[in-house]
């Protein structure tokens, strides 16, 4: 089916290796109990997988709540309007997390919106927290945010809700480094499927 034909079709899920997930698990293995912030939707298999690293996980499910793509919506006086992250994420004010699972969300946000999200999330991250993101580096990307199912500690099942494609912003490492202020790139892995997996580590603001 051609993209944009008006009828959505869901392609078969595909399993890809994930060196980023493997690296994240290696870090968590001996780190004791960790709190996890899942920006994606609830997945029973993922929940079971993460439960071995810590008993606490917050599911924000931005995918269901966010009008995508998140653009740097500008008012008439050219001021960037911050998305209502409080309402969209619904995080408890005392929530502190060691892992943030963003998956491919950042691809569907323009850089000012990414910067705004990171600025908001920092207050909920403990120093050393890992921000796990998948960045597409190809001309086209899935038309909607993909759902990722963890099959094991080094494989992800990509479940694209639609076969339609859209242009990819191709966020570059340098640009990401700027908007991810107070985070450093701890690891990055370029996969054969055109995805770059990033592990950003929060260094704190001190």
């Amino acid at each position, binding site marked *: 089916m051609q993209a944009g034909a008006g009828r959505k079709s869901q392609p078969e899920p595909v399993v890809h290796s994930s060196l980023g997930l493997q690296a994240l698990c290696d870090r968590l293995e001996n780190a004791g109990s960790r709190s996890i912030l899942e920006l994606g939707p609830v*997945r*029973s298999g993922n929940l079971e997988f993460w*439960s071995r690293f810590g008993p606490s*996980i917050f599911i924000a499910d931005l995918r*269901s709540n966010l009008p995508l793509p998140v653009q740097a919506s500008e008012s008439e006086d050219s001021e960037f309007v911050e998305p209502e992250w409080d309402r969209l994420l619904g995080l408890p004010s005392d*929530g502190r997390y060691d892992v943030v699972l963003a998956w491919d969300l950042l691809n569907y946000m323009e850089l000012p919106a990414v910067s705004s999200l990171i600025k908001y999330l920092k207050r909920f991250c403990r120093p050393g927290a890992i921000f796990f993101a998948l960045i597409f580096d190809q001309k086209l990307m899935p038309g909607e945010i993909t759902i990722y199912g963890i099959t094991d500690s080094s494989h992800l099942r990509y479940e694209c809700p639609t076969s339609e494609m859209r242009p990819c912003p191709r966020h570059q490492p340098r640009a990401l480094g700027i908007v991810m202020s107070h985070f450093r790139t701890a690891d990055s892995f370029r996969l054969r499927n055109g995805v770059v997996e990033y592990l950003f580590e929060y260094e704190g603001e001190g």
Partner: protein
Amino acid sequence: MWKKSEPEEAHPQPAPAPMPQPQVTVPRPVPQVREQAVIGSTISIKGDLTGEEDLSIEGKLDGKIECRRHSITVGKNGRIKGDIYGKIITVEGAVEGNLYGEEQLILRQSGTVRGNIIAPRVALEDGSNFKGSIDMSPKEKSSAAPVQDKPIIVPKVT
């Protein structure tokens, strides 16, 4: 001629009176069918619910539900605004509030929860709609009494 004696069964003797049985208290068998209260889809309740039996809700409830030793099922038509305390909680409908499961919480594909889940075992079916935190801490932590929102009453000092 001697009359042939008739067999004994032809002359049924009156049955001996049954020996009085000693009074023995026999425990009643446990009924196999568990009691379950059902709140139908046309019922709307404002207020808290407590009970000592399983509960199934298809209606609307605005308040707390507390059946800590029993199963609570929020059916597909069920709409709850308030916290739920139960042994095994199953959600097929919509809940806006925190869920405290002593043993397990199950969120079915048709279910929607806006709130936190505190239970040692949690099963969330793919496709279900959930936003909130999941705490699968050991029981001694999870069963701790939640912080009450009630104001603290300070006695007057005269």
